[in-house]
């Protein structure tokens, strides 16, 4: 049931999912929904936690075991989970995290884990040090995580030229030669 809710929330904006949609899609009685989750937000949080644990955590694990940044990017965007598994995280980051502290904490913790999984060594200088080409501690890992999310956005939008495989290879080659 929570998995079905996660799929629904991953496909539409939070405000675009009504209780009628949830009742119909999940085959659940309205009273049971309120009794079990307390509110639409309660169900949303359960769905987000489910998606982070079952879709995103395995993806982070695959990224951490990848041979290098380029392969890590490919792993993040390849099935299973890599593509659509990121959608609820993306929507949560954009529309719910700015207005819901609990969602913001879950999103931040997950993005931090993805940063760490990229395995990119920290830069050597202080943050903002112009002498450090990697932009200081953590900057390159944040950039890689952002690339993963950006490529997923382009793929979901069906944007022309959104060949994630080629983009990952190009970025991987650049990072290997730095």
């Amino acid at each position, binding site marked *: 049931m929570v998995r079905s809710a996660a799929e629904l929330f991953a496909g539409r904006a939070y405000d675009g999912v*009504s*209780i*009628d949609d949830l*009742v119909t899609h999940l085959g659940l009685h*309205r*009273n049971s929904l*309120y*009794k079990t*989750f*307390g*509110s*639409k*937000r*309660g169900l949303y949080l359960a769905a987000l936690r489910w998606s982070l644990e079952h879709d995103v955590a395995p993806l982070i694990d695959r990224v951490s075991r990848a041979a290098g940044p380029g392969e890590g990017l490919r792993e993040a965007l390849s099935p299973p989970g890599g593509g659509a598994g990121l959608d609820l995280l993306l929507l949560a980051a954009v529309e719910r995290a700015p*207005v*819901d*502290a*609990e969602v913001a904490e879950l999103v931040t913790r997950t993005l931090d884990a993805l940063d760490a999984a990229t395995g990119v060594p920290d830069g050597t200088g202080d943050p903002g040090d112009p002498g450090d080409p990697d932009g200081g501690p953590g900057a390159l890992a944040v950039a890689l995580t952002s690339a993963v999310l950006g490529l997923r956005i382009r793929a979901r939008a069906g944007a022309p030229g959104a060949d994630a495989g080629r983009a990952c290879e190009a970025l991987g080659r650049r990072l290997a030669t730095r």
Partner: protein
Amino acid sequence: MAQINVDGGRLIVEITGMNRVWALKKRLDIPLAHVRGATADPGIVMEPKGIRAPGTHFPRFITSGTFYKDGERVFWDVRDSSKAVVIELAGERYARLVVQVADPRATVALIERAQLVS
């Protein structure tokens, strides 16, 4: 129509105008710790209400008062379904409140913010 405020860790629900008469209730005062959540839910008015005791129910016109369904006591005060908000409770006389408010989105945000800081 209900006016909803948060004051000192308590959720105050005031029934306004003639609805006090239909609902036979003026005010509900609930500890925030007993509030499980709030949801804007226009579709809930289409659900069976159960047994009315006491209150007023003219289908598609007004649902106001106490209703019993599936062993639960639910307080209703709704005339305009598009403005219905469901407030789920725990450890209270009512299992949930279904009330009409002026701005459902703002009311839900008010309750959710209050829950996060309480």
